[in-house]
């Protein structure tokens, strides 16, 4: 019995293998023809967010927001009557596994797009796979803005969208002396490079630039140094637990946010929940979205999120992007003839797509990054952010803004 089952399944595998073998030349020859597919009754899309491991804390919320958007779309009748079929993989916070699972989603499950990941490390691990398979990868996180792939749709802010208006505002309100503090990896360093170029333009000054290892949790020396240097602003790109520990030790050390506020590019409602409202109050974050943004779209988003995932669940500036990217995908597909869905046509249809996201109306640039609405908010003791500076207009994404002679365009990276 068992033996017969075994033979049957290996036989089936053999047939599949032959079929795969036959189609291999097509796969190898033309990338675009290989990824062309006629949509069936449903539309397979990949969801590649870690549900276990170190970054699960944040990625779980992105997974939840994306999945919610897909379920909303299906409940409203799908795309041209076709339902989205989310295929969920858990890459367990490990970059190599991200690449492996992305490949599986694209080859085995024939996903026409994959939504996923939070850290730059995981995006960069997936990058060769999406480029090789010529697929589209929808990445919702803010990042350092030094990448220009034709296969990644960037939904989060790049440095110019998080810093341009904020740095000038902080100098005006608090003073020109900045203490740059971040974790020791690429994102904080690139953001700080951009910050220093802005400071140089605005007669500001970086009194110190310091990086601590990921997960660093004892900030007593740094707090002493901050006390000695007396900067006007602590410009923070600390992430996760380091940010939580720093904020709590700042409070325990009795420093005063009205004298020396922390201006963070990375602190969202998720971190503040762990920091505690009291330790977060009086400090600032710069991001395109905060949970209590008052737009009808956001009220609907937050309400739906809370009723699905519990009353104390929070939305934040990455989960918002994870949510609206699914709608951007829908908007792009709606423009297409179901018989002509390829990576090229989805991308072409997506560029210029404008839709009302919870933060406001967002638009996909030809460089595949997104036009967003920068905001500065002051954290309140109830753990929510009060928006105190709302940009008057939408800001275009400028990847490579800190690098002269390099621009990301619709044709890829252009060097002059």
């Amino acid at each position, binding site marked *: 019995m068992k033996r017969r089952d075994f033979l049957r399944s290996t036989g089936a595998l053999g047939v599949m293998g032959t079929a795969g073998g036959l189609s291999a030349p097509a796969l190898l020859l033309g990338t675009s023809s290989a990824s062309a597919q006629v949509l069936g009754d449903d539309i397979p899309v990949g969801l590649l967010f870690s549900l*276990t491991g170190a970054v699960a804390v944040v990625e779980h919320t992105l997974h939840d927001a994306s999945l919610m958007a897909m379920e909303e779309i299906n409940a409203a009748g799908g795309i041209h009557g076709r339902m989205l079929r989310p295929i969920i993989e858990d890459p367990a916070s490990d970059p190599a596994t991200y690449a492996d699972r992305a490949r599986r989603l694209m080859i085995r499950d024939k996903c026409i797009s994959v939504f996923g990941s939070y850290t730059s490390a995981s995006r960069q691990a997936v990058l060769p796979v999406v480029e090789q398979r010529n697929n589209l990868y929808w990445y919702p996180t803010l990042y350092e803005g030094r990448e220009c792939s034709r296969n990644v749709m960037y939904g989060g802010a790049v440095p110019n969208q998080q810093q341009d208006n904020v740095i000038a505002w902080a100098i005006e309100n608090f003073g020109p002396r900045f203490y740059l503090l971040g974790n020791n990896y690429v994102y904080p360093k690139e953001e700080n490079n951009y910050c220093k170029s802005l400071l140089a333009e605005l007669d500001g000054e970086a009194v110190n630039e*310091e990086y601590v290892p990921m997960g660093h*949790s*004892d900030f*007593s020396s740094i707090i*002493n140094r901050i*006390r*000695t240097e007396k900067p006007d602003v602590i410009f923070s790109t600390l992430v996760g637990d380091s940010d939580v520990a720093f904020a709590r030790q700042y409070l325990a050390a009795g420093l005063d946010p009205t004298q020396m506020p922390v201006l963070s590019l990375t602190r969202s409602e998720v971190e503040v929940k762990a920091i505690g409202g009291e330790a977060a109050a009086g400090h600032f974050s710069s991001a395109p979205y905060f949970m209590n943004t008052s737009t009808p779209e956001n009220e609907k988003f937050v309400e739906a999120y809370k009723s699905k995932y519990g009353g104390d669940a929070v939305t934040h500036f990455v989960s918002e992007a994870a949510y609206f990217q699914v709608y951007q995908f829908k908007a792009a597909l709606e423009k297409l003839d179901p018989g002509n869905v390829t990576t090229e046509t989805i991308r072409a249809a997506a560029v210029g797509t404008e839709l009302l996201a919870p933060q406001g109306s967002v638009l996909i640039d030809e460089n595949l990054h997104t036009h967003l609405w920068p905001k500065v908010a002051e954290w309140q003791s109830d753990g929510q952010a009060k928006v105190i500076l709302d940009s008057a207009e939408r800001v275009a994404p400028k990847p490579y803004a800190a690098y002269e002679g390099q621009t990301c365009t619709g044709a890829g990276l252009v060097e002059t």
Partner: protein
Amino acid sequence: MDVVFNQLFAGLSMASILLIIALGLAIIYGAMGVINLAHGEFVMLGAYTTWACQHYLGFGILLSLPFVFVVVGAIGWLIERTIVQRLYDRPLDTILATWGIGIMLQQLVRIVIGPESRFVSGPDFLRGNLEIGNVVMSNYRIFVIFFSIAVLLATWALLTKTEFGTKLRAVIQNRSISECYGIESKRIYSLTFAYGAGLAGIAGTLITPLFSTIPTMGTSLVVDAFLVVIIGGLGSIIGAAAAAVMIGELTAMFSLVINDTLGRIGVLACVIVLIRLRPRGLFPENTRG
């Protein structure tokens, strides 16, 4: 000059937290020869128990301390009775076993309580600073320093002034002869392991207002604690105290002169040199045999 004093205080504050964690580790190693890689997870369990006390019962941190000591101590006792006790004749296997226990505890917390960082509020009356001239010392950190000294003294008294301590030292000296005198070495071991775990739990409670309470929080702490135990001389309580102060202050001073990241490298380099010169640590226990 104020900068140096401020930094000396920061070093002492790091040392006090390290000391409480390392003390449990040192006792468990000194008494039983068990290298307990799950010690960091006991610290983590202490932090989560504190969170539970506050979240469900409304206890402040100080009120939680005895509960945490008992709860984490009981978990340690259970682990000793079920797993570690079977491995006393295979000291190297205890490394693997306790490492596995640590992973299981982490995953258990992640599954049962969830992966996100938990918030524990610090005691209100310890808010603010004590300022002497330009030297600013956080009240909470002063409290932690004194508390760790008290824990050190209590542990010393337990080992030297009580019947339990006498029995424990007898078992350490020679287990089979002590058993001939009617000392139940297994029971002594279980209690010692429980006490060490309880100390780690207390350390977990004390760091909750300063650190982020997550399932993996113990991993990095246990590395520093091992450093303290090795430099202090395996199993030596006085050595652990001296080494904790040394590492705390060294880290603070390097951090003052260079920065935290390079400072850390500097500290590790000093540790390597020190181990080369004094392979058995600062205060080796010469009585073991």
